[in-house]
């Protein structure tokens, strides 16, 4: 039977690919070891949350009101007061050296202004070198001051705010940024390993000259394509599963949605990643070109995926580019299933673009196998 032949061909090639990849002890190690280490380190490191922001306080006021406000700041886990200044000239060195992120200055009249009912001003000098950290720190400070203000007004018996905000965050109640980042790392590491495995598979043979031999065997290009794709998909699938287990067990990220929907997403994502990898591999003549090609794809793919910064903040033109990025869809699926508890119906528009990307890249790779001979 023809089908049996095809299957046997594919099977034999896939076995050979696995052996080529796993024969080397170091290759085996780099597929498993580093990704797990990465997940651990980055999972704990990649965070926008701020704890213990170093602060210096320059208080010229002797009244009790200023002391009360300062005690609120000292009591906040977000801030750590590391210096109390006595002179103006101490401010600049602390900020310049990055010893503190911000300096709070309370003028001589702070308490008396407050008691007389005029607005007392709290001056904040902020190191803007890292703009995001600076804004986050201001955010924490503003909410401390706001609480202080409302308490003060209430104590004075004045009509405070006649409308108050009651804020809740859905899906991530405490707004922990590792709930956002760690599911993203699942996509990132799966893409990295799959892309490297597949992009080197053809280039390695090209460099060694065995790809020409493969082309003159009875194997059809379609069979070569599938045989070369299988190791990438299998390894990617195992890798993704391993990372998801670590994510749930160690980082305690909830897995609220449908597991089947997650694996459908992983399957389609791997298909597109393998397609891109094989396409890069088919274009490259040397392994160096293949790795660089994988890299030239990888970095924009991470940046444009919304892994670390929101797609909505990008210029419209760049937002269009993100639609070509399979990681973009996969991250929405992973986050949707882990945090939001989504299922198939809400994710349907993430599935089909990955299927299209996979189909197009795989066809191109197959075409390139036949039409690129060196």
């Amino acid at each position, binding site marked *: 039977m023809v089908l049996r032949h095809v299957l046997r061909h594919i099977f034999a090639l896939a076995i050979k690919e696995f052996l080529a990849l796993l024969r080397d002890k170091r290759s085996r190690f780099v597929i498993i070891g580093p990704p797990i280490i990465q997940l651990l380190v980055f999972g704990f490191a990649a965070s926008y949350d701020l704890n213990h922001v170093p602060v210096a306080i320059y208080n010229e006021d002797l009244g009790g009101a200023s002391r009360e406000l300062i005690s609120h700041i000292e009591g906040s886990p977000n801030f750590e007061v590391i210096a109390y200044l006595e002179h103006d000239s101490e401010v600049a060195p602390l900020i310049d050296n990055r010893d503190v992120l911000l300096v709070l200055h309370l003028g001589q009249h702070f308490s008396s202004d407050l008691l007389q009912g005029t607005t007392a001003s709290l001056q904040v000098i902020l*190191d803007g*070198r890292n703009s995001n950290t600076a804004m986050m720190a201001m955010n924490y400070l503003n909410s401390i001051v706001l609480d202080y203000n409302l308490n003060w007004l209430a104590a004075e018996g004045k009509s405070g705010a006649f409308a*108050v905000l009651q804020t809740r965050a859905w899906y*991530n109640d405490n707004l922990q940024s590792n709930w956002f980042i760690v599911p993203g790392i699942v996509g990132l590491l799966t893409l990295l390993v799959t892309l490297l495995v597949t992009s080197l598979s053809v280039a390695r043979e090209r460099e060694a000259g065995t790809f020409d031999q493969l082309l003159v065997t009875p194997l059809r290009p379609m069979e070569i394509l599938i045989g070369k794709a299988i190791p990438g998909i299998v390894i990617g699938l195992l890798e993704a599963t391993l990372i998801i287990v670590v994510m749930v067990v160690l980082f305690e990220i909830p897995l609220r949605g449908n597991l089947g929907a997650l694996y459908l997403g992983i399957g389609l994502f791997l298909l597109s990643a393998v397609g891109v990898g094989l396409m890069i591999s088919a274009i490259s003549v040397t392994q160096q070109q293949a790795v660089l090609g994988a890299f030239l794809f990888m970095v*924009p793919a991470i940046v444009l995926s*919304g892994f670390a910064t929101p797609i909505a903040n990008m210029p419209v033109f760049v937002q269009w580019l993100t639609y070509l990025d399979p990681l973009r869809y996969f991250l*929405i699926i992973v986050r949707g299933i882990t945090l939001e508890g989504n299922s198939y119906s809400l994710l349907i528009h993430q599935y089909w673009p990955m299927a299209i990307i996979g189909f197009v890249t795989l066809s191109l790779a197959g075409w390139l196998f036949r039409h690129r001979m060196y």
Partner: protein
Amino acid sequence: MNRLAQMRLWGLIRKESLQILRDPSSIAIAFIMPVVLLFLFGYGVSLDAKHIPVGIVIEQPDRETQSLAGAFERSEFFSPQYFSVIQTAQKALDEHQIDGIVWLRSNFSAQLLSNSASPIGVIVNGVDSNQANITQRYITGTWQAWLSHYAESRGQSLQMPVSVEQRVWFNTALSSRLFLVPGLIAIVMTLIGSLLTAMVVAREWERGTMEAMMVTPLRRSEILAGKLIPYFVLGMGGMLFSVALAVWQFKVPLHGSFWLLMLSSALFMLVALAIGLLISIVAKNQFVAGLLAIIVTFLPAFILSGFLFDIHSMPSWIQFITYLVPARYFVAILQTLFLAGDVWSVVLPNIGALLMMALFYFLLVWRKFHKRLE
């Protein structure tokens, strides 16, 4: 050095340079990669949110709700959509059409007019915690501005007891581009220095040309210098190119001295090259070398260097790991030199650290390289 040794070294440098020039992928990574990365990050990556889609639920429209909705309408941070019941807004939040909800219940105006604190429900999608924080901050800001505006319109004055006056140093507009672009130079140089070198030398091991080189009269130091010098030149070229793009294209000010920038870049380049060489010696195979270079140098430079995520807020065992990441020191130098100027107390210790690392890694390369010769 005698004439013969000079000739030998010169010949080797010539050979390495020709190898770079022949394989276009090396040139690509030195000059195309910086452009792609800088444009991607410069234009694509932004933490500055604008026109955040929020849903405003108005259960009973009247003058008061109109006035609050107007405040959102006028803000450049929001593009509001209106809903009359909370359920449809929640559905839109689930479908990612909006990032947050401001919910004015039917008794909002009645409570407002009776001077009892009227609750405003705020729900944000917390999946992207950083974005959610920013959204909350803007909602709070808009609400505060509206409060005092509304108080005035009723002939009352709502005076906050304490007002925060912020002054931002170094990056007055708190634009995330100004802090991302300098750090990006470290990433680009890591790529050129480590990834490219690791791949190229691993290829020589794989093909056996390294062993061929060892039976020539070339000394160990000459082989190493012959490998390093062309890539050093290539890397510094890529670096100059990135600085030019940063200053002229992205208008990042360079407050510090250009020569200090060059000096610290040269040091960082040496560290990156040494790590690249070390990886190739350990890996001896292009697949392993490529994966190791990405995992040991590129990803840490991305996540652990303080380029994007604040090092201070990481758990202390990870802060300890960051001391092993050379990019950490270079990013600190870059952000300071570009945005603040020649702050010696920041620059000198970091240059010292880079110097130590360069010495350490070269010593390691020297020893490892020697071992393998035998």
